[in-house]
């Protein structure tokens, strides 16, 4: 531990945010700036026949952009190049951008948009995963499958044929979820032939936007500049979609001759058009001995990717690798597919596929426990991975973890045994219309990119020392509310042995910072933070090698050394580059090997009440025990856990997207219900910190882990309370009512 690492130092940008000094993209006004708006399709699938403009609108006052105005290639550069910036001849989802308008007066735009009509000849559309898999209507390739992964370990079929096993089957589903960052998306662009393209906006991954703009305008890298403005939350939602808004704003500016164009989404547009968590379906078939030893797991995992491939393949990858959870099982098979539908493309959201497959698994573990008559905590305890065991991808766990101790701690903090007994007595009294229950989940989450991903990313971080010894971290990692600026400053200050106040983090600007990879995948602290530490240490070595700095030094001596170096050599800036920890070997072809350099581990327990008059489930207590390695900033780490749990409570029992012909019909905060403070219980957070050798000061990732476990724990608790099984998240009151009525009519039929 250093002086700052391990301390809950104040956020670098906290005061500016709470006093309103921070400038978000919609606060920024450039000289001569005009405003843009997007005209979208309204049918889920069809052929564009033409565009009509109503008379009576002074169209000559507007800048109008269609696909024909694109100077480069009309494709959003991501994994597969299938998504256009503006639909040209085919519509593939009901909120697809077709045309752009800009005008100096932003108040006339929404009304003008109503006077543009896109004539479409409708084609049959597909919305359900099973319909997409059946491929009666083909939207992509010849089978609608964007991507398939197969994991195989041992001999699953032989294991199912054993005569000493019980076979338990189940199907589990999860719905789409909106990230609901507080700041809707937006961009400002200045773009003109000969001058290149510059965009400023709300985003997570500056170099993703940079990558997308180059082919759109057919420009070399140095003529495209992307700057992140203060960003009000992302949760994955600002990973890929900002490329589209940036492209749109820049296309309008380009056509307008370089006039700055601001394009801001209101909440309704942001909800309807931008990416959400992939809906999922998981089928489990498990062979288990009568005393609860997992013998074989056969998993069929499917995601609804929406209309374009976007990031679905990587979301699917993470879901696939987490599908068998933190359990020891000698035989495992996972078949995973992401399919095309006519929903707007689904995308990144905290957890990135893992919450979906873990939901299925942790509900299924309770079903196995019930089938065998073993307590759910006991079934898990008998199968938890320990150091030296192998995961479903045959990765040997080398971290010194003790998930069993975390589970015991969670059970004890939650008062599991006493409360379970008290609740059973309470629920048995018919006068108590509010039933109580408890549920748990044990799970893990891989930190950083999967497999060889970090090697391909080859992230770079710089540190520059300026006058007075002030040091600036140069990284493309963005502060999106989670604490990047603070964590990086703590790590750098300790590595440099300088006061926290002397370190700052540069505004992410592709003209200034190197590509340290995207701000995703719980990688910022563990992977990029380590690069910050390496760069800082290398800066000290540089000064020592130049004979300017001794073994021990004060901040003043450091400043003098920097000044001397700068006088002699000009700039003092050093870079560090990612190095894979030894022993990380991943076979992409067979999906086997070390999927992640490190995992976060957790045992979560939810306590719920279900009101049998209104069928509403409410979470009344929550215990979250986890190991995320060394805590760089305990307050921020606890905040990540609390926020993740709250967001997962929303996914579990409040947030349902109402799809109508592929369009989100409840695209208002009034009707898409996220929990308020009144719906979230005290979240009790406990850390078991086992340092990870290759993380900065032993830290691992934290951002996504807390999203993985709460939903199954809550639905397990609902079943404990009412004795009825719900296998789809969200479990809204309407769903709980239908399940209770179906169960009671079944039991009447059974007894009658």
């Amino acid at each position, binding site marked *: 531990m250093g002086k700052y690492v391990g301390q809950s130092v104040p956020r670098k940008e906290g005061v500016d945010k709470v006093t309103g000094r921070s400038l978000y993209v919609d606060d920024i006004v450039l000289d001569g700036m005009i405003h843009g708006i997007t005209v979208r399709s309204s049918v889920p699938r069809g052929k564009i026949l033409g565009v009509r403009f109503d008379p009576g609108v002074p169209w000559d006052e507007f800048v109008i952009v269609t696909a024909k105005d694109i100077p480069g290639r009309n494709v959003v550069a991501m994994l597969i190049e299938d998504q256009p910036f503006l639909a040209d001849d085919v519509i593939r989802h009901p909120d697809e951008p077709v045309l752009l308008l800009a005008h100096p007066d932003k108040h006339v735009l929404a009304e003008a948009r109503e006077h543009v009509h896109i004539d479409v000849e409708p084609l049959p559309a597909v919305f359900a995963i099973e319909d997409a898999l059946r491929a009666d209507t083909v939207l992509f390739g010849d089978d609608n499958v964007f991507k398939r992964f197969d994991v195989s370990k041992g001999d699953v079929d032989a294991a199912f044929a054993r005569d000493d096993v019980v076979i338990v089957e189940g199907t589990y589903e999860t719905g789409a979820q909106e990230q609901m960052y507080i700041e809707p998306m937006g961009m400002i662009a200045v773009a003109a032939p000969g001058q290149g393209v510059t965009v400023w906006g709300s985003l997570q991954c500056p170099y993703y936007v940079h990558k997308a703009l180059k082919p759109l305008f057919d420009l070399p890298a140095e003529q495209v500049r992307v700057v992140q403005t203060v960003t009000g939350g992302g949760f994955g939602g600002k990973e890929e979609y900002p490329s589209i808004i940036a492209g749109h704003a820049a296309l309008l500016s380009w056509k307008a001759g370089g006039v700055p164009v601001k394009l801001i989404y209101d909440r309704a547009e942001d909800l309807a058009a931008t990416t959400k968590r992939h809906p999922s379906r998981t089928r489990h078939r498990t062979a288990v001995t009568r005393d609860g030893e997992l013998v074989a797991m056969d998993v069929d995992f499917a995601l609804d990717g929406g209309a374009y491939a976007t990031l679905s393949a990587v979301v699917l990858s993470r879901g696939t690798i987490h599908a068998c959870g933190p359990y020891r099982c000698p035989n495992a098979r996972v078949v995973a597919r992401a399919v095309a539908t006519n929903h707007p493309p689904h995308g990144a959201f905290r957890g990135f596929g893992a919450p979906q497959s873990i939901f299925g698994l942790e509900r299924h573990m309770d079903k196995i426990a019930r089938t065998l008559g073993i307590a759910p905590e006991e079934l898990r305890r008998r199968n938890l991975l320990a150091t030296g065991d192998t995961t479903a991808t045959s990765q040997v766990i080398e971290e010194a973890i003790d998930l069993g101790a975390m589970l015991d701690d969670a059970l004890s903090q939650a008062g599991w045994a006493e409360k379970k007994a008290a609740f059973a007595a309470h629920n048995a009294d018919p006068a108590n219309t509010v039933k109580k229950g408890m549920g748990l989940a044990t799970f893990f989450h891989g930190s950083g990119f999967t497999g060889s991903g970090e090697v391909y990313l080859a992230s770079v971080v710089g540190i520059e020392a300026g006058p007075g010894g002030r040091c600036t971290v140069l990284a493309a990692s963005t502060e999106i509310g989670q604490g990047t600026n603070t964590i990086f400053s703590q790590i750098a200050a300790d590595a440099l042995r300088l006061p926290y106040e002397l370190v700052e983090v540069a505004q992410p600007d592709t003209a200034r910072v190197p590509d340290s990879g995207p701000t995703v995948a719980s990688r910022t602290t563990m992977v990029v933070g380590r690069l910050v530490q390496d760069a800082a240490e290398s800066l000290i070595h540089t000064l020592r090698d130049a004979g300017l700095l001794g073994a021990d030094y004060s901040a003043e001596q450091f400043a003098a050394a920097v000044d001397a170096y700068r006088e002699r050599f000009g700039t003092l800036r050093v870079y560090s580059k990612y190095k894979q920890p030894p022993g990380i070997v991943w076979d992409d072809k067979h999906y086997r090997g070390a999927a992640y350099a490190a995992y976060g581990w957790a045992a979560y327990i939810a306590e719920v009440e279900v009101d049998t*008059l*209104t069928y509403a489930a409410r979470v009344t207590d929550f215990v979250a025990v986890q190991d995320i390695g060394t805590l760089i900033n305990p307050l921020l780490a606890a905040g990540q856990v609390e926020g993740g749990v709250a967001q997962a409570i929303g996914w579990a029992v409040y947030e349902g997207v109402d799809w109508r012909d592929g369009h989100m019909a409840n695209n208002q905060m009034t009707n898409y219900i996220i929990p308020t403070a009144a719906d979230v219980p005290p979240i009790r957070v406990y850390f078991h910190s086992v340092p990870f050798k290759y993380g900065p000061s032993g830290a691992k990732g934290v951002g996504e882990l807390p999203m993985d476990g709460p939903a199954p724990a809550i639905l397990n608790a609902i079943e404990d309370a009412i004795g009825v099984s719900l296998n789809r998240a969200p479990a809204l009151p309407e769903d709980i*009512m239908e399940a209770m009525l179906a169960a009671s009519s079944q039991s009447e039929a059974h007894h009658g």
Partner: protein
Amino acid sequence: MRANVASYDVVAPETLAEALTLLADEPGVWTPMAGGTDLMVLFEAGKLPTGRYLSIHGLPELRGITVDDDAVTIGALTTYSEIRDHAVINADLPMLAQAARETGALAIQNRGTLGGNIANASPAADSPPALVAYGAELTLVSAAGTRTVPYRGFHTGYKQMDLRPGELIHSIRVPRRPASEGWVHFYRKVGTRAYQAISKVCFAACARLSDGGVAEVRVGFGSVAPTVLIASALEAALTGARLDDAGLEAAVAAAARHEVAAIDDIRSTARYRTQVSENLAVAFLHALRAGG
């Protein structure tokens, strides 16, 4: 903001007389606007019809709460916050205080008004079921004079009401229902989250118990019909009933199920609304037994 503010004309008269004159001189032209908490949602979404709006929010004649021995009279422009915090309303008309407390967020409660809630005529409004259960009366005012009508029956269809051109709601008179006189109050608003939710079902019932039986009862439902629903069948099933009547539970459940006319919409399903209505009616009966 999807509306173009230049397409709207808003006039804010300083006195009630001035407002009534404007309404009388140009009938059908002006849409009154009280706290604006419903209209501004439409405005933001670009769905508020363009035209001329009469902002009456500042009219002092329509504000304030007066109490006499028999009733509480609430000016139409009294805010939810004022109702929520009023001592006599909390004591004798607790369902009105609760409805105010559970409507929107604090900012909405500071701005939204009881008269606006009535005149907006949303079937999902939270105060109207309580006004039905309390047997409230409305005083309506126009340049031609004033008249008083029972609130029960004021709403005649979806967004339709017994309000003549040029007429404004002046005040709402609610008879006091003190517990000391045997009144039992039962209010449940059901939204998908604890607060800041729009009702999927709202249930308000007030009964006077006497000698082991129900002497008098009124019940209103919200969000289960095109208007706030007067639960006449449920009232009939309970009025004069003995609380120890073993068949009462089934009668209450059947009456509630029979009279709600719920639909599927973006917030819930007809099945849910009907079932929960029935459950709440039975829970009300249980509360009467517990309180009787």
